[in-house]
């Protein structure tokens, strides 16, 4: 039965055209960014930075470097938006359209139904990141060579990596992105378990993430920033720091997973308590 119920949720999610709109949007944005990188001034700026640090630009402006640069704005902006859109729909849309009432006239527990939906959300988040990371790398490879990479970002400094280390960290960073996307899906999912419209669940989840980003960056909260979930979202890029701070990475992973589980349990409790009416 677990398989059947899980399969149902996958059918429902991936049977909708709307599910694929985000994938299309990512592809368009990635293509645009790649063109900008290839023909704009970004490349020249990077060459200057590398030369200033004593590195040969042609050795490090690679497919991996460009893929990571392409991912930064998408992970920060598009991914949470799209993940919360899907997460906000998962329960609230079914309640709004009346299919939830049809399901709950069957002998399935509310918790089990929610668990299946939540797991589907995790699958979706993982798939989204895999597609995102895969297409970014493939598109970047069209114009840029498969060589070592460099990553420069506030808080992690300037890091030059060999192709082997770079690719392995790229895969690790995708894992973290998947966790980030799952947390965003889970947050919207939690709100959608309450009696509200799908759009309201999405907006609330986005608001939580936005407030978290703003507060995390206010100097007053500098010593509290680890309390904000979005601080841990940046682990996907902190991973490129040399040497990789695995203990901090592990801690962030635990916090995000705990947050994901907490939002699920809060949503499940709210869903269990509410009346399902037409």
């Amino acid at each position, binding site marked *: *039965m677990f398989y*059947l*119920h899980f*399969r*149902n949720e996958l*059918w*429902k999610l991936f*049977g*909708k*055209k709307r599910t694929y709109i985000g994938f299309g949007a990512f592809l368009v944005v990635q293509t645009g960014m790649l063109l900008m990188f290839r023909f704009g001034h970004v490349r020249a700026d990077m060459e200057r930075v590398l030369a200033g640090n004593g590195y040969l630009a042609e050795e490090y402006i690679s497919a991996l470097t460009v893929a990571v640069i392409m991912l930064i704005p998408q992970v920060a902006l598009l991914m949470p938006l799209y993940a919360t859109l899907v997460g906000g729909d998962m329960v609230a849309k079914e309640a709004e*359209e*009346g*299919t939830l*009432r*049809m*399901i*709950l*006239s*069957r*002998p*399935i*527990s509310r918790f089990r*139904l929610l668990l299946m939906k939540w797991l589907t959300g995790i699958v979706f988040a993982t798939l989204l990141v895999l597609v995102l990371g895969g297409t970014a790398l493939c598109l970047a490879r069209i114009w840029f060579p498969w060589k070592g990479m460099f990553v420069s970002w506030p808080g992690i400094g300037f890091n030059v990596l060999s192709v082997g280390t770079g690719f392995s960290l790229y895969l690790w960073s995708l894992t973290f992105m998947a966790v980030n996307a799952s947390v965003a899906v889970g947050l919207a999912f939690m709100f959608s378990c309450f009696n509200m419209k799908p759009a309201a669940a999405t907006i609330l989840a986005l608001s939580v993430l936005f407030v978290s980003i703003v507060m995390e960056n206010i100097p007053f909260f500098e010593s509290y920033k680890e309390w904000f979930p979005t601080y841990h979202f940046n682990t996907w890029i902190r991973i490129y720091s040399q040497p990789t701070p695995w203990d901090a990475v592990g801690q962030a992973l635990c916090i995000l997973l705990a947050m994901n589980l907490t939002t699920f349990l809060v949503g499940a409790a709210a869903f269990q*308590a509410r*009346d*399902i*009416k*037409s």
Partner: protein
Amino acid sequence: MAVDNLTLRVPAGEIYGLLGHNGAGKSTAIGMMLGQVWPTSGEVKICGHDVTARRRQALQKVGAIFESPAFYDYLSGRRNLEILTSYTAATPPARVREVIEWVGLSGREDSKVRTYSHGMRARLALAQALLPHPELLILDEPSDGLDPEGIHEMRQTILRLHRDLGLTILLSSHLLNEVEQLCTRIAVLNQGRMVFEGTMASTKQRERWVRLKVGDFPSAVSLLRGAQLIKGSREGRLISLDEGVSTDRIVKLLVEHSQPVYEIASEEETLEDFYLGLMNGQREVK
């Protein structure tokens, strides 16, 4: 409070009508039966199992249809059935085919539900309710939104289900005509409380109404009341006879007092008369 102090027992094999105006508490009562609405007190048992504590066992043999049935419009009819029925039990494809045929959706089962007419959606709703071999079928306003042909078809189907499959059917409706034609027993809800429960036949035996056409109806009523032959009158044309009084005595008395009688005939009380009388009575009680 949507439902207050409601005690309802649906005997096996009946078509049980749950009647009441909009907001009377019918859908809430059904929601409680299906474990979708939590009662603040009391219990709901289906086939002997408590819906709250033993949901799986209680709803194993239950099928339900709601007003304006909702489906995943972007999926095919067959896929919708596969999804909905899997929440009860794994169903073999042959059973899905059989039910699709039974409801008359053969040939269209692989089309997307968004292409279905209202009538086809109603049939699909029926199919999903029948797939798990139910013993109890709960129908919440099943004719809502259907055209006259669709309503007729739905009624015939309900009767067929009762006759051929021996299902117990709980039908919630505010269409008196529909309830009258289908149900063997009814409960009437008003503002969350049950104001009547009994067989359909008992709704017609409560008062004997006689249609009376005379020259002066008010004075005829006054005369008959004075002679203690009638209990009441209504609508300027109907009188309710006292126990043991026959129409010939009415005619005799009126003629003796020079009241011309043009017509006298017994009038069978419809469910509508009964229902309106019940609701008026409720208003007067308040």
